[in-house]
C-alpha cells in the first residue's frame, strides 16, 4: 500500500483554525500539517488514513437536538480533512442522520461508503436505492456486502452496479474477527476493491493472512472496531501515556490506537466512530505527525498487552 502525504485544503484549514480558536483543543493540528494518505490499489485514488464509522453514534432517530450534535461531529470530521464515511442499513437511523447532517452542512460526502445487508439478493437493489435516498447521493463511492450476508448474489448485483456507474468500488466486510477463512477465500477468488475487517492493537488475527493477502491482491483495507468498541479506553483510560507516545506525536490513547493501525502497510483507512466533537478532533489528530515503525509497533503491542 503506497503511503503519501497531503495537506489540508484551504477550507479545511480555515475550519481547523476556527476549531482551535473556539475550543483551544490540545489536539488541534499543527497548521497545514501533512495528512497521512493511502492509495486505493484499484485506482490509485488517495484517501485520508482516518475515516468515520457510524455504528451506534449516528443512530439518533428523529431527535433534532441529537441530530444537530452529530452535524457538528461531521463538520469537525470534514474540517480535519476526513473524507470516507461508512454506514450500513443495519445501523438503524444512521444513514438517514448522515444524510440529514450532510444536508445541514450543505456539502456532499467526499467518499460515501455503505453496505448492502439483506439475506434476499433480490432485495439488494431496493435497499441500495433506499440508502442513496437517505444519504442524498446519486451514487456510492463504495458499496460493501455487510458481514458476507448472501455475498455471492450481492456480488453479481454490485458488479452490474459498478459497470453502470451506480458505485465506484466493491467491498466485502466482516467484524469482530469472524469468518476470516471465508473472507480469505473471497479475497483469493473474487475481484473486489475493498475489504473491511477488525484490526487493532489487541485484535491482530488479520495480520496473519488477511492483511498480507490484501497487499498481494491489491485490495484496499478498511479497519473497523479500532478501539475494540471502546473496550481499549475502558482498560487504559486511567493509565498514563507511555513514554514512546511522544515519538509518534500522540497526545492521547485514541491517537496511539489509530496510529498503530494505520502504520500497518496493508491498511488503507481506519474508521473510528464517535458522537462527540472533541473525540472527533482526537481521532483526526492521528492523521498527522509521526507514525510508528516496525520496531515501535512491536513495542506498542508488548507494552499495551502488559498494561
Amino acid at each position: 500500500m503506497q503511503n503519501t502525504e497531503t495537506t489540508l485544503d484551504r477550507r479545511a484549514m480555515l475550519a481547523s483554525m476556527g476549531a482551535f480558536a473556539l475550543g483551544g483543543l490540545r489536539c488541534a493540528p499543527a497548521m497545514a500539517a501533512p495528512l497521512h494518505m493511502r492509495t486505493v490499489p484499484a485506482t490509485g485514488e488517495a484517501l485520508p488514513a482516518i475515516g468515520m464509522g457510524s455504528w451506534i453514534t449516528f443512530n439518533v432517530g428523529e431527535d433534532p437536538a441529537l441530530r444537530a450534535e452529530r452535524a457538528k461531529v461531521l463538520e469537525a470530521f470534514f474540517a480535519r480533512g476526513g473524507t470516507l464515511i461508512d454506514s450500513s442499513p443495519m445501523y438503524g437511523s444512521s444513514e438517514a442522520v448522515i444524510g440529514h447532517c450532510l444536508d445541514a452542512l450543505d456539502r456532499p460526502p467526499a467518499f460515501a461508503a455503505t453496505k448492502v445487508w439483506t439475506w434476499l439478493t433480490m432485495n439488494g437493489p431496493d435497499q441500495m436505492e433506499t440508502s442513496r435516498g437517505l444519504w442524498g447521493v446519486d451514487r456510492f463511492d463504495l458499496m460493501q456486502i455487510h458481514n458476507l450476508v448472501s455475498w455471492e448474489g450481492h456480488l453479481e448485483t454490485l458488479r452490474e452496479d459498478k459497470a453502470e456507474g451506480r458505485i465506484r468500488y466493491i467491498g466485502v466486510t466482516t467484524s469482530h474477527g469472524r469468518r476470516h477463512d471465508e473472507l480469505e477465500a473471497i479475497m483469493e477468488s473474487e475481484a473486489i476493491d475493498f475489504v473491511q475487517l477488525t484490526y487493532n492493537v489487541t485484535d491482530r488475527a488479520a495480520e496473519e493472512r488477511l492483511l498480507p493477502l490484501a497487499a498481494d491482491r491489491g485490495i484496499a483495507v478498511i479497519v473497523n472496531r479500532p478501539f475494540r468498541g471502546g473496550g481499549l479506553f475502558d482498560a487504559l483510560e486511567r493509565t498514563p501515556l507511555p513514554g514512546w507516545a511522544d515519538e509518534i506525536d500522540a497526545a492521547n490513547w485514541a491517537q496511539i490506537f489509530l496510529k498503530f493501525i494505520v502504520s500497518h502497510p496493508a491498511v488503507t483507512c481506519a474508521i473510528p466512530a464517535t458522537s462527540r466533537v472533541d473525540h472527533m478532533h482526537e481521532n483526526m489528530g492521528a492523521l498527522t505527525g509521526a507514525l510508528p515503525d516496525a520496531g515501535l509497533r512491536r513495542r506498542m503491542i508488548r507494552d499495551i498487552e502488559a498494561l
Partner: protein
Amino acid sequence: MLPFTGPVYFSLLASYNADLWPAQIFAYGLAIVALAMACRPFPGSGRAVSALLAASWIAIGLAFHLDRFAGITFAAPAYGALFILQGLLFLWTGTARGAFRIGLRSDTTGLAGLALAIYALTLYPLAAWLQGHGWPMTPLVGLSGAPTTIFTIGLLLLGRGRIPYHLLAIPVLWSLIAGAHAAVLGIAEDIALPLAGLGGLAFAFRRNLAARRAERRARQTG
C-alpha cells in the same frame, strides 16, 4: 451490542409518549380495570382481562416496535411480531376459548401476582422518574413493553387453577431480552424485569405442580 444508546432510546420513548398522549390515561385506566376484575372476578372476567391484555400487547407491537423502535434497531420487527403473537395468544386462549380464568387467591403465587401488578402500575414509573426518566420519557403500563410485561406476568399469576405456560412464555422471554437491553444501556428501573420474569415462571411452576398433585389426589380419591 445494541445499535443505539440510552439517551437515544429515551428520546424515542419521549417522542412516542408525546405523540400518543392522552392515550396513556385510557390505557392506564384499563389496566386498573383489569386488576380490579382479577381481584373481584365475575363470570367472563378472564375473557375480558385477556382481551384487554391482548389489546395492549398488539398495540405495543404495532405502535412502538414496528412503527417507532424499528427506526433505530433492526431487531424491532421481530420484537413487534412477538408482541402481536402474544396478543393473539391471549385472544385465542383467554377470550375465545375462555381457558384463562382469573381471580385473586391468597396463596403465595396469587399474592406475588398482585404485588407485581401493583409494582408495574405504581413503583415502576416512580423508579423511572427517580432515575431521571420522568414524563414524557416514562414507560407506562398499557403502551410500553417493560411495565406491561411485569403487569401481564402479575395478572397471569392471578389466574385460577393452572397457569397456561404458553401465555407466560413470551412475557418471560421479553423480560430477559429487555433486561439484557437494560443492563447494556444502564436502565436501572428495568433490573426488576428479569426478576419478574424468572420469578413469575417459578411461581407458575409451583402453582401448576400443586394443581397437578391436587388433580391426581382427586382422581385417586374419586
